[in-house]
């Protein structure tokens, strides 16, 4: 229902042409092989732990999701209604693949999984997110994370 090609043409074009920052540099960080990596999820699905402060509009900050969070306690408060939520309702790994990361760590494919994961609300202007993203990098490094997977919604 909500593949980009299934949206009304004007909506699809707007999404495809959404303005994004024009970066002059191309940072590139190398590191050890996957079995030595500590991985965190930083989603842009507007995820929030049940009972905590949901994203109200285009908030530029982020929400923390402790690794011990259960599927029943994770909600989507993203401002957009133009994406499927039924996949997430059935299985949070569709959006927030924490169970898959834990399995990969148990199998030794990756080293470790972070203690805390995070979510932004992806419809926010990325320029406004920048200071929050840079502050988040400090928190991630404090958790010894060296690798981040960034799922949208």
């Amino acid at each position: 229902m909500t593949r980009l090609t299934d949206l009304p043409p004007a909506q699809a074009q707007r999404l495809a042409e959404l303005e994004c920052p024009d970066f002059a540099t191309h940072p590139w960080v190398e590191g050890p092989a996957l079995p030595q990596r500590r991985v965190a999820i930083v989603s842009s699905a507007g995820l929030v732990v049940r009972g905590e402060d949901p994203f109200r509009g285009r908030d530029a900050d982020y929400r923390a999701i402790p690794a011990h969070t259960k599927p029943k306690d994770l909600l989507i408060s993203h401002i957009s209604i133009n994406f499927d939520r039924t996949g997430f309702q059935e299985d949070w790994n569709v959006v927030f693949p924490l169970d898959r990361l834990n399995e990969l760590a148990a199998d030794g494919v990756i080293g470790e999984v972070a203690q805390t994961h995070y979510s932004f609300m992806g419809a926010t202007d990325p320029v406004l997110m920048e200071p929050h993203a840079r502050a988040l990098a400090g928190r991630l490094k404090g958790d010894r994370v060296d690798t981040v997977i960034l799922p949208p919604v």
Partner: protein
Amino acid sequence: MSALGHYLEEEGLATVAISLIRPQTERSRPPRALWVPFELGRPFGPPSDPAFQKRVILAALQLVERDDGPVIIEDFPDDDPRARPDPDWRPPFDHAAVADRPAETIARELESEIELLRSVLDRWVTQRGYSTVGLSGLSIADCAGLVAGQLRGEALTSSREGFSPPLMLRFAVDDLKAYYLEAGAAGSAKPSSRQLGDWFWNATAAGAALHAIRAACLASSDDRLKLIAGNFMVPAARVLAPG
């Protein structure tokens, strides 16, 4: 996600983004991205398919071991098998709801559907272990009451501190959709999102109510209500053509 990747990478963290919209990713040129041919809302593909999801996440994570940056965009080759309709799926009911019936009729049907679906949702919770209803903090009956009140032309109120009335309406609508769509998916069949959406928007009083409220709010003089109704109630693909 591409911009976040850029900022985090500048701060010394290796990143890999999942991309659902390839043209956006091509323009923003993140350090690493895996484009996936899935519908919006499903960056890791099919629900309840751990093996498929693991292939997606591995294909993404393996990009951090490559040394041919600083910009890598790869494509995941396989479609989401759950995007196909399930011919065995049947909705909990099919009222062939019509949005232009009297508002009071739709409001009463909505309230009766909520009760009708209660045992179906209980089945879902037994199956899955949880429900994602709960963003508004209201009971589902109160969410339906808020929506029915809008149909009846009642003043919009919020019972939760810090939530403006339009925000409360938005979250109540999100909860109402979650309640119906989870109930619709209860059972052994595996409906596609399109099947569930067709049912919700075309054959339930809740879908009819949201179409009607959207139309009424867009005609109101309250700009916040117009904004909520115009953008956060009926998906663009489900907006009815005028007339």
